[in-house]
């Protein structure tokens, strides 16, 4: 089948990327991009013409989930199963997608058009549940809207060619319109908004700048549009539709030529008369920054890593400079030596934001002191926690700040070469950091002898190929060297023996992005924020069952309740706050009763959770804690690298017990068996993934043991575990047929205006019928 394979293309790829064995991952990525999968003939060819061996290519290509060895359909449907999507019903959505295409898991439909896969996290937690088809993200997908989504994709999106920005004219403008271009906003539809803005402004012939800005954090109200006119109070519009744009524009800007204004107005009137597309701008969407809700959302926050959020154009280096960017570098290079710099970082109390909370200064000092000519600096942007997207947002919105932090850190430790290791699932982040690196190189901020300091640094970007374990630094380094992403026993730590055996500094995006602020404002200012042990701020992705989700940066020491109630606006839908899951699959579930726990490395550890990289998912009383434990463990189990026995086999055995519990087949002694397995996995695993994988299970058992006991008795108190519940329709049914229309599997039948029935055999328990029923006639038992 590969006879017609274009071997020359393979040769070209290898020629371009390099023949050394450590290039295997970029080579595979390029081959997959060219052929949409990895044809065996192409892999054999790579081995022929490079130093990559068959064993290596086989091992690496089967390790990372990005790589596909079999052909796939024309379009890839990725159903997100991140934490936020999961608690909002992504499993049912996934089932519905499969159903509507008539295929099984991982299959391609008969037309070869779609392949469906479940993905760990698209990082659009506030749009949950989210589905991505190729590059298009659909948010708030329901089981009954799945087929519409697919139709919409085929009709509109598959053939849509993205427009490029029109060049902005120089000269005096009447103001600017800011649109959020973080991934959440893009997924929320900001690209269409941009098109509509351009159309409207062109129609009015207004000189108005369209300014893309990074993530505002208010992801729960995307897409956001802010109109800023000099001398006037800025106005923020949330959840904007493209159809709303002409109205918004007309409200704020007047055409320079009165005739155009009249014509434009007339046209829009006509449009309103003859089509039903155009609508009034719903007032309720327009929000003032001084609105109470917005003030609450932003009020407790403190923007350091996310400084200038909502203002800064992510790809505008000049603006970054104007707002104080790169000042810290000059300051450091002119006034500091590495020792003093590290002691300054030490004074600030900065601890790594990647999960472990290791003091940054200690790590830097270790790399600085480690003997070796060559040293490396790595940005760990392989954030893979389901339900967390802090690093993605920081790299997307503040790429220059991240690089500035890296330049300062490299000066401190004496690293001359660096890698930004970014998940390939974050295309926007990749694009922005690549551009930022190129800009910095042009500006002399990267390269030889930066600012005459004799310090040199070159940076490259590496696309992670899809393995959560590569967030572990030794596994990350293994994959950089072209090996399977399997961790090594530490010590030796990377600070002593890292990339290619050289001393290597590894920090994540958030850690680096805090550094410039510390330098500019002084260590004391940073240390003045937070608690005794945890200084500064922490970025969280706040999602789940709250009113207002999004990306937040809060001072350490703020309590869980404050985050949930004030920033998040409390639990949505009138339900009760049950628990919060912090730290993703390594963290734990903290019950509402411990809501006074402060956000602090030690305090969170004391209650059995951990800071992790910063997922903050709020759960309400309809969430089953056993199911949550199962969810997190199924993630870590599938992401285990398989190297050490406790993690490889232990997590599997634990998952089997949890699956049994969720299916109502629990046995007496299962809780104790789980605890024993958890102790083994936690105590004896090789790396952090295994050592922390039992945390979600141990904390849920600790705080919600009664729910586990209920499952052994065959009950799911939250009514969530599908095998233990049944849907039926009672006599209150008015026969409106809404449920039957929305049912993705046609399990509901009945005559109009009589009581309908649910076939329990067909029912997939997607809960859609209960949600659409106007008279609450659908009951769950």
């Amino acid at each position, binding site marked *: 089948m590969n006879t017609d394979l274009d071997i020359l293309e393979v040769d070209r790829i290898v020629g371009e990327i390099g023949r050394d064995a450590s290039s295997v991952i970029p080579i595979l990525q390029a081959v997959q991009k060219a052929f949409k999968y990895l044809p*065996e003939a192409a*892999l*054999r060819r790579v081995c022929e013409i490079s130093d990559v*061996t*068959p*064993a*290596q*290519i*086989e*091992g690496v290509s*089967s*390790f990372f*989930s990005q790589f596909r060895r079999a052909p796939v359909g024309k379009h890839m449907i990725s159903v997100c199963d991140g934490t936020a999507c999961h608690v909002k019903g992504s499993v049912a959505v996934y089932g519905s997608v499969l159903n509507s295409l008539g295929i099984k898991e991982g299959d391609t439909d008969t037309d070869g058009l779609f392949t469906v896969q479940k993905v760990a996290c698209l990082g659009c937690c506030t749009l949950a549940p989210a589905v991505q088809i190729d590059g298009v993200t659909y948010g708030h997908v329901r089981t009954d809207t799945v087929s519409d989504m697919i139709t919409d994709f085929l009709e509109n999106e598959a053939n849509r060619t993205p427009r490029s920005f029109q060049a902005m004219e120089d000269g005096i403008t009447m103001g600017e319109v800011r649109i959020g271009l973080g991934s959440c906003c893009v997924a929320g539809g900001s690209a269409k908004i941009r098109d509509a803005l351009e159309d409207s402004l062109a129609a009015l012939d207004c000189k108005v700048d369209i300014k893309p800005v990074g993530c505002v954090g208010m992801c729960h109200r995307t897409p956001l549009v802010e109109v800023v006119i000099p001398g006037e109070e800025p106005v923020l519009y949330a959840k904007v539709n493209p159809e709303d744009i002409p109205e918004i524009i007309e409200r704020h800007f007047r055409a320079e030529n009165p005739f155009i204004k009249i014509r434009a107005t007339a046209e829009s009137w006509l449009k309103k008369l003859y089509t039903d597309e155009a609508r009034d701008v719903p007032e309720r969407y327009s929000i003032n920054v001084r609105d109470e809700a917005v003030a609450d959302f932003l009020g407790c926050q403190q923007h350091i890593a996310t400084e200038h959020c909502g203002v800064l154009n992510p790809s505008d280096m000049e603006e970054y400079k104007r707002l104080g960017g790169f000042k810290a570098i000059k300051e450091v290079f002119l006034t500091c030596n590495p020792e003093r710099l590290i002691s300054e970082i030490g004074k600030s109390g900065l601890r790594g934001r990647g999960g472990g909370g290791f003091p940054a200064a200690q790590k830097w000092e270790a790399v600085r002191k480690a003997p070796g000519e060559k040293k490396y600096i790595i940005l760990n942007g392989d954030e893979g926690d389901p339900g967390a997207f802090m690093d993605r947002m920081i790299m997307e919105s503040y790429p220059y700040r991240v690089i500035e932090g890296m330049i300062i850190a490299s000066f401190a430790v004496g690293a001359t070469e660096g890698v930004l290791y970014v998940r390939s699932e974050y295309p926007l982040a990749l694009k922005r950091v690549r551009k930022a690196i190129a800009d910095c190189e042009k500006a002399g901020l990267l390269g030889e002898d930066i600012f005459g300091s004799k310090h040199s640094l070159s940076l490259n970007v590496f696309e992670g190929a899809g*393995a959560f374990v590569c967030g572990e630094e030794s596994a990350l380094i293994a994959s950089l060297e072209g090996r*399977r992403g399997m961790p*090594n*026993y530490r*010590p*030796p730590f990377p600070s002593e023996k890292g990339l290619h055996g050289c001393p290597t500094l590894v920090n994540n995006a958030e850690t680096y992005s805090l550094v410039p602020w510390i330098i500019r404002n002084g260590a004391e200012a940073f240390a003045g924020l937070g608690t005794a042990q945890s200084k500064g701020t922490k970025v969280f992705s706040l999602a789940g069952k709250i009113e207002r989700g999004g990306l937040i940066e809060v001072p350490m020491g703020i309590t869980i309740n404050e985050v949930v109630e004030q920033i998040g606006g409390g639990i949505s839908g009138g339900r009760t706050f049950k628990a919060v899951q912090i730290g993703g699959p390594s963290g734990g579930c903290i019950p509402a009763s411990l809501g006074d726990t402060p956000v602090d490395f030690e305090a969170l550890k004391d209650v059995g959770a951990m800071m992790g990289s910063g997922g903050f998912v709020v759960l309400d009383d309809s969430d089953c804690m056993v199911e949550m434990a199962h969810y997190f463990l199924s993630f870590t*189990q*599938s*992401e*285990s*690298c*398989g*190297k*050490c*026995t*406790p993690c*490889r*086999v*232990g*997590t*599997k*055995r634990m998952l*089997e017990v949890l*699956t*049994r519990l969720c299916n109502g087949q629990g046995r007496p002694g299962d809780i104790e*068996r789980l605890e*024993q*397995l958890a102790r*083994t996995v936690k*105590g*004896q*695993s*090789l790396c952090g993934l295994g050592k922390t994988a039992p945390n979600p299970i141990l904390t849920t058992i600790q705080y919600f043991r009664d729910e586990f006991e209920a499952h052994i008795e065959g009950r799911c108190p939250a009514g969530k575990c599908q095998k233990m519940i049944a849907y039926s329709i009672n006599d209150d049914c008015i026969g409106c047929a809404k449920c039957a229309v929305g049912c993705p599997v046609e399990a509901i039948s009945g005559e109009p205006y009589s009581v309908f029935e649910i076939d329990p055999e067909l029912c997939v328990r997607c809960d859609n019928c209960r949600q659409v029923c106007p008279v609450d006639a659908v009951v769950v038992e």
Partner: protein
Amino acid sequence: MPELRINGLSARVDDGATVLDAAELVFVEIPTLCHLKGCEPETSCMLCVVKDVATGQLIPACSAKAIGGMEIDTECDEVQAARRDILNLLLSEHVGDCEAPCTRICPAHLDIPRMLRELERGHMDSAAWIAKRDLAIPSVLSHICPAPCEKGCRRAQVDQAITIRELHRTEGSVREFGNSRIPGLTPMVTPMEGAGKKVAVIGSGPAGLSSAWKLCQLGYACTVFDEATQAGGTLRDHKTLPMDVLDTEVEWLAGAGIEFELGPAISLHMVSDKFDGVVFAETEFSGTHFADAFYAEEHKLAVKAVANGKAAATALDRFLKGEPPDAAERFDSKIGKLRESEVRELCKNSSAGSRQVITQSISNFGGTEAARCLHCDCRKPLSCKLRKYSEQFGADQQEFPADERGHVRLIGHNEAVVFEPGKCIKCGLCVKITKRADEELGLAFTGRGFNTQVAVPFGENLQDGLKQAARECVDACPTGAFAFKEGGEIKN
């Protein structure tokens, strides 16, 4: 040169040495599965955990560097429990039997698969020797044993069980090996630790004969006493057993060096004065029990009596050597009934014919019948480190039961080496060895996590992946995952 203490013993090691190196220096044994000298540590099995007393943490000895002042405990309960947990986890995914069901069911644990393989190759002498070694009176049993072994035979899932009972008849050839040596199988009538000591066996039934033969193999000068004039005990009253078969067996045992004192009444005082040890092999034990005597109960199931006799002999041997009684049985991994697909998989390695009734000489038909054996036993029952440590640490395969056990798969049906993925513990040694040997294809880890497998790249044949390093891989593999197809280890 850092100096550290291991179980209180001081060890001074070179810089860069591991805790495992240090332990070796002071002769403290630490169990390992994934470790191979000369290879970078894999830190995969985690069996080598030891306790760092200062931090209280369990650390893998194979990878943890020895640091001056370290205090290491390799014996404490916590370490033992941790190792047992690791073994239990590995066993929970281990798809393989240590012993074939036939051997396990046979009370006397006749090494049936090995015997069949010798027959298949035409090594009649070797086959006969195995039968003799394990059963003492194999020809007698071939007439009267109800053959529980055949009821456990997995070949029955395909067509009918192997004819095992008739195949352990020792014809002509058995006469010769009283003093001969068969290649690969060394008759045990050689001086051993038991040499010079004299033992007595009271009773000449199957238990007595078996006990005497076992003691004889262990190197003792053995005398069998019986008040009857002919040896054989209850066997003499058997209705269908041809007595000449029994006579031949007794004759052979006498020829192998066992003394028989038949007829006169036995004076127990005389026996206890003249002999270093005594085994009482009788149906019922009445009267005085001797404090340091050993008892082998006769049993109406002759093969059970044979087993009792062997056990008593072994116990006496340990007693005379001053060793504690051997309480632990050999560890056996068990996978239970095979699935249809698995039987078919194993069938690829055996001949297709249906069961033959052996009425004629074994040398004519034994080989063909033996070739029907599925070889469902492990090819490395003795050298398997997983089995060894499971025994040592008292592992329990049922501690963490799997929902569904993995599939029996056999890779390399027509090749010298076979690979059974179900027995692989993913230690990575074979992957490293083939890489070091510069194999063109070699072996690779494929997949991730629990689904990690060892495979030849691009789905090529096993022999193409192992052009140079086959032997090294088989030797290094800590379990029966990699073995020579025709290999097999000789038990004693």
